[in-house]
């Protein structure tokens, strides 16, 4: 899919943006930087996947992202709701997976013991 002109690019961009806008899934952004992985991001990812299957949730998607900067709270998950707003959870352990899913995906709560303060705009 080689782009050969300015027009090609903007066409692709438009399509991409549109596709994204139509995506109504809840996103779980898991920090997959070196520090996140060192702190157990991979294990958390598995636990969440398992939890989502257990609760039969279809409208949530895990996205591996880079370092968010909350090193003190790794592993972290940012949950982004399609209707707007998001919440950052820190110090997640695999045994908390179901708890997290129940509170923040099923109930879409903005508060819990896992939420850490967002310190940037």
């Amino acid at each position, binding site marked *: 899919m080689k782009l050969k002109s300015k027009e090609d690019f903007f066409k692709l961009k438009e399509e991409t943006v549109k596709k994204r806008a139509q995506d109504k899934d809840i996103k779980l952004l898991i920090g997959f930087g070196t520090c996140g992985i060192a702190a157990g991001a991979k294990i958390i990812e598995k636990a969440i996947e398992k939890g989502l299957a257990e609760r039969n949730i279809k409208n949530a998607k895990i996205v591996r992202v880079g370092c968010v900067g909350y*090193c003190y709270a790794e592993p972290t998950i940012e949950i982004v709701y399609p209707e707007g707003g998001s919440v950052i959870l820190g110090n997640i352990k695999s045994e908390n997976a179901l708890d997290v899913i129940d509170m923040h995906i099923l109930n879409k709560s903005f508060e819990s013991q896992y939420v850490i303060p967002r310190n940037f705009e």
Partner: protein
Amino acid sequence: MSEVTEYKKILPEELYRKLDSFVEDLGIDSKDPRKKGYLIQVLHKAQSLFGYLPEEVQKFVARKLGVCHSEVSGVISFYNFFTTLPKGKVNISICMGTACFVRGSEKVLKEFENFLHIKSGGVTSDGKFSLDVLRCVGACGLAPVVMVGDRVYGNVNPKMVGDIMTDCIKLANSMEENK
């Protein structure tokens, strides 16, 4: 391939063959005045294959790239990453980045040194464990950090050294069995 057989000494020929084909695949033109630019890359590969860069490997690399042994040796001795001595089967690295340092990684290192009866940079007499220090693995949130192979131990204090060593011994034994 003539270099492979000429330089085969104590290290397995198979590894030399792998290194040889790695260099061949780079497609270096022997007349290219910039061919030395591949040196560090080739040394990385060689060390990942052999575990260390003894003289025989250095000479093989020199011959392969058409540079002098002195140049290869000078480069290896300059960079921390390269070693001319074999490491232990299990290598334990203590992060000595500033973040880890201020959170007490020095004490952790001391504890490992006492436990293994070797200094940082050394290898135990049975060749099983080696100990060295790293400058920041970038997991400062978990400081002090200890790395064993790919595994990262975070928030380490001297009291945890025994537990980490239990893991290391298990790891070394399992490597032994797989062999």
